C-alpha cells in the first residue's frame, strides 16, 4: 500500500518535524497471544472453553473427576485427583508390573530396595558423615574457613584482588597436573572416565610401591632428572619422566607426489609437548596391552601400564627402539625439509 502522504511529491520543502512520541514507538517483538492451553485436571480455574451458561453445552468432566463425583455420591473414596499417583506407588508390590517397567525405573527400584548405599568411586563424598557425638549444629567445614582479612585497597573491588600468580589447582578446569589429566584421557575407553581415573590412581600407587629403578646409562633419561631414589616418593614426577624420556621429538610426514615416481617424500615434522607425550603414551599403552596379566580383578591393566612405565625408566621398554628409529629416520630425511626462503 502506498503511503498516504508522500513527502517527495511536494515541489517545495515543507518544514516537517515529527513529534518525538510518534516517531518511534517501542513495541514488543512478539505479541503475547491469549493463553489457549488446556488445563490439567488439578487446575484451579476452569478451562477457558467452559464459559457457557447452559448446562448441556458445558464440556464433560475428565474421567477421574467423574469417578470421584460418583464415588462421593456412593460414599466411597474415589480416585485421587489432586495429585497424580507416581508409577512407583502403582507398581509397588506387583512383581509382574515391576518386571515390565523401563530399565531405568527398575534400576532405581533395585537401588532403593537394597539397603547398601551408593557405590560410586568419586574422590569426594556427597554424603555427610556426622561425627558420633550428636551435635545439633554440625560444623560443615566452613566455620574455620575465614577469608584473608585484607581490606579492599582497589576502589570498585568488593573482595580485594587475588594475589598473583594464582596457586596451582585453583582453576576449576586445570586443577590437576596436566600430564595426569592427559594420560587419564588417553587411558579412557568408551568414555568411562571414572574407570580411567581409578586406573590412573592405581598406576601411581604401583609406581609408589615398586622398588627404586636402576637407570640404564645407555638410555639416559631427560637431563636434570632427579636421582632414581627420589622417584617412588613422587609418582607424578616418575610418570612424567618415563613419558617425556621416551617421547619422540618429531614425526615423519609422508608427502605424496613430492618425490616423484610414486614414492612418498618423508618429511620430519617437529612435535609439540602435548603431541610428544601423546605419542609416547600410545606406545606405552600398546606395549602394556601386550603384556600378560598376572593377577585378576580390576587392577590388571593399571599394573601392566605401571610395569611398562618402570621398564621405560629402566631402559628396557621397546618404546626406546621406536623412538630411536624415528629419530634416525628424521635425521636421514632432514634434507627433505624445505625452509621458506627469506628475502
Amino acid at each position, binding site marked *: 500500500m502506498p503511503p498516504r502522504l508522500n513527502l517527495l511529491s511536494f515541489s517545495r520543502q515543507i518544514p516537517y518535524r515529527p513529534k518525538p512520541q510518534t516517531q518511534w514507538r517501542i513495541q514488543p517483538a512478539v505479541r503475547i497471544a491469549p493463553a489457549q492451553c488446556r488445563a490439567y485436571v488439578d487446575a484451579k480455574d476452569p478451562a477457558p472453553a467452559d464459559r457457557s451458561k447452559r448446562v448441556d453445552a458445558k464440556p464433560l468432566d475428565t474421567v477421574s473427576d467423574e469417578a470421584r463425583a460418583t464415588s462421593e455420591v456412593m460414599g466411597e473414596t474415589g480416585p485421587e485427583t489432586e495429585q497424580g499417583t507416581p508409577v512407583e506407588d502403582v507398581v509397588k508390590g506387583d512383581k509382574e508390573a515391576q518386571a515390565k517397567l523401563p530399565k531405568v525405573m527398575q534400576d532405581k527400584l533395585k537401588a532403593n*530396595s*537394597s*539397603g*547398601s*548405599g551408593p*557405590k560410586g*568411586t568419586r*574422590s*569426594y*563424598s*556427597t*554424603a*555427610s*558423615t*556426622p*561425627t*558420633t*557425638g*550428636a551435635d545439633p549444629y*554440625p*560444623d*560443615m*567445614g*566452613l566455620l*574455620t*574457613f575465614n577469608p584473608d582479612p585484607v581490606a579492599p585497597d582497589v576502589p570498585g573491588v568488593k573482595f580485594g584482588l587475588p594475589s598473583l600468580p594464582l596457586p596451582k589447582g585453583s582453576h576449576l578446569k586445570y586443577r*590437576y597436573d596436566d600430564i*595426569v589429566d592427559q594420560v*587419564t584421557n588417553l587411558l579412557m575407553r568408551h568414555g568411562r572416565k571414572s574407570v580411567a*581415573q*581409578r586406573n*590412573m*590412581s592405581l598406576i*601411581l*600407587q604401583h609406581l*609408589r*610401591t*615398586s*622398588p*627404586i629403578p636402576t637407570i640404564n646409562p645407555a638410555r639416559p633419561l631427560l637431563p636434570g632428572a632427579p636421582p632414581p631414589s627420589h622417584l*617412588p*616418593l*613422587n*609418582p*607424578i614426577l616418575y610418570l612424567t619422566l618415563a613419558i617425556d624420556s621416551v617421547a619422540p621429538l618429531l614425526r615423519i610426514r609422508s608427502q605424496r607426489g613430492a618425490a616423484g615416481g610414486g614414492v612418498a617424500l618423508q618429511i620430519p615434522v617437529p612435535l609439540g609437548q602435548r603431541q610428544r607425550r601423546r605419542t609416547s603414551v600410545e606406545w606405552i599403552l600398546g606395549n602394556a596391552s*601386550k603384556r*600378560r596379566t*598376572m*593377577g*585378576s*580383578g580390576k587392577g590388571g591393566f593399571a599394573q601392566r601400564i605401571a610395569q611398562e612405565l618402570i621398564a621405560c625408566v629402566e631402559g628396557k621398554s621397546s618404546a626406546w627402539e621406536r623412538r630411536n628409529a624415528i629419530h634416525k629416520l628424521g635425521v636421514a630425511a632432514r634434507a627433505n625439509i624445505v625452509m621458506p626462503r627469506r628475502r
Partner: protein
Amino acid sequence: MASSTCLRRFSQLSLDRATQPAFAPRSLLAATQASCFSTSAARHANPTGKKGMGAAPKRGTKTLNVKKGRKDTVKDLSKKPSPGDRKAMRKRIVLSNNNALEVPGLKDLEKDNALDPSNEGKVMGLAENVVDALRAVEAFKPSQGWSLFRRPATLMRKETIQVAQLLKEAEEAPEGQAKKTLRRILTGQRMSGKSTLILQGLAMGVLRDWVVIHLPEGQDLVNAHTEYAPLPGSQPTQYTQDLYTANLLSQIIKANEKILASININTNPSLPFPLPANSNLKQLADLGIINPEASWPVFAALWKELTQPGRPPIMLGLDGLSHVMGESQYMSAEVKRIHAFDLTIVRHFIDHLSGKVALPNGGLVLAATTKSNSPTSPALDFSIQVAEARQNKASDLPQWNPYANVDQRAMEALKDIEVLKVGGMSKEEARSIMEYYAASGMLRAKVDEGFVTEKWSLAGMGNIGELERASVRLRV
C-alpha cells in the same frame, strides 16, 4: 491415504488371501511378513543350497577379508600363572612399603598404654607380634591402604577409645560381681572405618593377652564354598563346617599361641580320638586341625576350656554381619535352604552376640556391618534403628511394619543389641592422620588448617576412607 500406500494395502489384501490358510492364525505376530512386489528373495535364493559357490571375485576388486588381521597377532608364549595364583595375587596383603619414609616419633601400642584414653587423636604403630596375630586372623583387608606405609599404624579415634573403654570394662569387674560380656554392632557409612575398628579392637585384645577369635568374613560362612555335614544328635539339625572350623582353629592357634600353650586341659572332653595326658590347649587345637572331621567337637572342647574360671577374657569378632542374618546357600536333605543360625559356628557367634550365652571370664563381642557388599537384611537394619533410638533415649521407638516379611530368628537374636556408630573424624583427628601421611612421604603438601579443612570437607565431613582416597591415593 497416499496413493502408493493405498496400492500397497490392496496388494497385501490379495497376498493375505492367497497365503493364509483356511484356519485362523494362532498368533497375531505369525501373520505373513512378506513384502509385496519384491523379487529380491527369489533373486537371492541359492538353488544348490551351498555356500561359497559364487564366482571368484574379479582381479583387482577389494574383498572383505575378516581373517586378515589374524596373521599378525603374536601368540603370547610367556608362562601363565598357575591355578590359584591370580586369586592369591588379588587377595595378597602387603603391609609395608619400603619406599615410604620412617615416621619419626611413631610410638607403638603396648600392653600398658593400649587402653589409655589419652591416646585419642594419636597415630600409633602396631608391633610386629600384633601384626602377625592380626594377619593370622585375617583382620587386614586388601582394600585397606596398609601397602602404602612403612609399617602398619592406626589412628586412635574417638570410637577406638570407646572400644578401649569396653575392653577395660570387661577386664575390671567390680568386687564380688561376675565379669561382663559386652556386645556391640559396629555401624556406619561406607569406608567409615568399621573393619579397621574391629582390627583395632583385636589388636588391643592381643596386647592385653586376651584370646582373640575372629571370623573375617561373614560371606565365607554362608556361601556354601566349604563342605558341611549334619551334627549328629542335634535337634533341630545343625550343620558343622569341618574344613572351615579346622582353618579357624589354626588361625586361633597362630594368633594366641602363647596363651593356649600355657593353659593345660582341666576338663575331660569326649573326643573321637585319645588325648595325651597333661596336654595343653594348643595340642588340643592341633588335633582338631589334623582331624577336620572332629574339628567341631575340638572347637567346643576348646571353648569349654576357655570358659573355665581363671582363664583370660575372650574377644570375638565378625565382619560382614548381614550375610549371616538370613538363610545360607547350603541345602538341607529336604532341599531347603539352611538358615545361617543352624550352622554351628554362626550359631556359636550369634549366641554370644545376642547375649544368650555369657563369657564367664569377661569378653567383648564385636560384629561389623558392611556397606559395600551386604545382602539386604531388614531385621538387622530395623534392629540397628531400634538400638540407636534406644541409645538416644528417643521417646518413640520405631515400629516394625507387621505386614512386612521378617527373619524372625534374626529379629529375636538382635532384640537387645547395642550399636557403636562409627562416624566421621573430627578435624583434629584428620589433621593428625594427615600429618602421619605427610611424614611417611605419601602426601606431598603442607598440612595446614586450610588444607586439612579442604580435604576433611571433600571427604564428606571426615569419612576416613574418603580422606585417604583424596589425600594419599591420588584419586582424581
